[in-house]
């Protein structure tokens, strides 16, 4: 007999996320079809280029997947801590311990970044290689229950395997970007040396045009997917702790602070940014429609509205 549960999945979010992934798949298939089309029309030289781009792009993707934890920690200037290191490390470990016991997850490694920017991130290719990092700024600003909400959000990213999902989703964009570059330099330097001059030039131009379109479309879709993953993590985190309001107050505190602080040190790497609790400075402040399309995180208003839904769901008396 299934136990009674109060946690209904969010169908709307599921549908939108499925649609986004489906569109990414469509772009992928269209891309392959266009490449094959160019290859058969103009000969084998383009096939070799594409093959080269796939190998190189695959290498990048696998590398960033396997070293995501090390890369992220190094970029953020974070250091792994043990519970006995300092009172704040003990506090962080205490919260992570309880969340893991509640969610039945293996305990991730815990790190603290020595910066006053209030933020937190989790990374690692799976739950066994995960690391959760909080900055000194967020530890200082948030109360225990708010910090717990933030960490529950980050650990939901780990549970959802967001690093893997987003790496795979970005694979297409990486290859398209590489092809644009290869085709561009091929056009500049390669054309003259070939016997079938005009042909090679056309191949390069066609490759470049297709790749640019694919890159632009997949970029927007990836950002859309990223925003849905953030909403999912908010939702799962709030359900785990049972306190959506703590997460909401943490969001308000952190985004408010972040918008005011102009430092850029945590923004050095864009892919890393995608797994922060809130993106640094620039986008969280503005909530115009256009900025939202390019943003990795949903707007504060949207996140608060979704958390309100969770709150209503949890408070309902009859189940």
């Amino acid at each position: 007999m299934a136990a009674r549960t109060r946690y209904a999945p969010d169908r709307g979010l599921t549908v939108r996320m499925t649609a986004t992934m489906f569109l990414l798949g469509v772009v992928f298939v269209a891309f392959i079809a266009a490449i094959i089309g160019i290859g058969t029309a103009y000969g084998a030289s383009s096939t070799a280029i594409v093959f080269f781009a796939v190998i190189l792009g695959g290498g990048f993707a696998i590398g960033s997947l396997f070293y995501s934890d090390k890369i992220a920690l190094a970029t953020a200037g974070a250091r792994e801590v043990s519970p006995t290191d300092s009172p704040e490390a003990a506090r962080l470990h205490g919260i992570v311990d309880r969340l893991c016991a509640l969610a039945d997850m293996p305990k991730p490694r815990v790190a603290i970044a020595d910066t006053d920017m209030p933020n937190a991130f989790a990374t690692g290719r799976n739950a066994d290689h995960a690391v959760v990092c909080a900055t000194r700024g967020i530890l200082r600003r948030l109360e225990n229950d708010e910090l717990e909400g933030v960490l529950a959000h980050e650990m939901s990213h780990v549970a959802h395997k967001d690093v893997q999902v987003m790496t795979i989703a970005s694979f297409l964009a990486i290859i398209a970007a590489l092809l644009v570059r290869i085709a561009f330099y091929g056009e500049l330097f390669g054309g003259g040396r070939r016997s079938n001059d005009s042909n090679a030039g056309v191949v390069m131009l066609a490759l470049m045009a297709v790749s640019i379109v694919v890159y632009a479309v997949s970029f927007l879709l990836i950002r859309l997917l990223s925003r849905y993953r953030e909403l999912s993590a908010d939702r799962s985190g709030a359900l785990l702790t049972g306190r959506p309001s703590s997460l909401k107050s943490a969001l308000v505190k952190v985004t408010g602070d972040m918008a005011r602080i102009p430092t850029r040190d945590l923004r050095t790497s864009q892919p890393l940014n995608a797994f922060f609790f809130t993106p640094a400075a620039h986008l969280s402040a503005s909530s115009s429609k256009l900025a939202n399309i390019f943003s990795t995180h949903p707007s504060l208003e949207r996140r608060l509205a979704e958390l309100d839904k969770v709150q209503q769901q949890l408070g309902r008396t009859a189940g």
Partner: protein
Amino acid sequence: MGFLDTLLGRTKPVQPKLDDLFALPSAAVTLDAGAGFKPTGSGSVCFRPVEGRSFSDVQKDVQDLLNSSSHAEGGLPVEVSKDDYGFTWLVSSRMSDEIEALVTDLHAVNSSLVDNGFGPQLLCTLVAFKDEQERRLALIYLYKRGSFYPFAPLSGERRNNALELEIKGVIGDDLKWEPDLARWFPVWGAPGL
């Protein structure tokens, strides 16, 4: 989590496993015989309160239930306390030889929460022990894993790992132990310990 849940970024809340809790009374006998630790008679259930009316109603019902049963048997009322991490502890105090009654009390809390759909909120349950040198020891049951681990606090947020491992050896197969040592998390200052 299934593949589809991963793909769609959903987590299913983990339901607690309750049955293994009843292994405690026999383990307590083994513990007394093997290491001289006796139950203090106090035990507690730790859970994560949920916002909203629905959960506070359930919590109040559980307290009333336990209070009325312990009152009928001449025991102490149930204590409620919150810890620094926002978790609630319901502490039940019995006589030191009433460990079966204690486990029944703890189980009543579990089943009320589970029956009302709040099973995923259960964190752990703790039963306290003490030996003749007043060394403290707790056996902690992790609901989500259905496993136990020992916790022996010393003064100043240090723990006696040697004693913990010894206790695990003494009790042996009477309890289902948590194999992953990283999950033996400390519960400093837990009420009832």
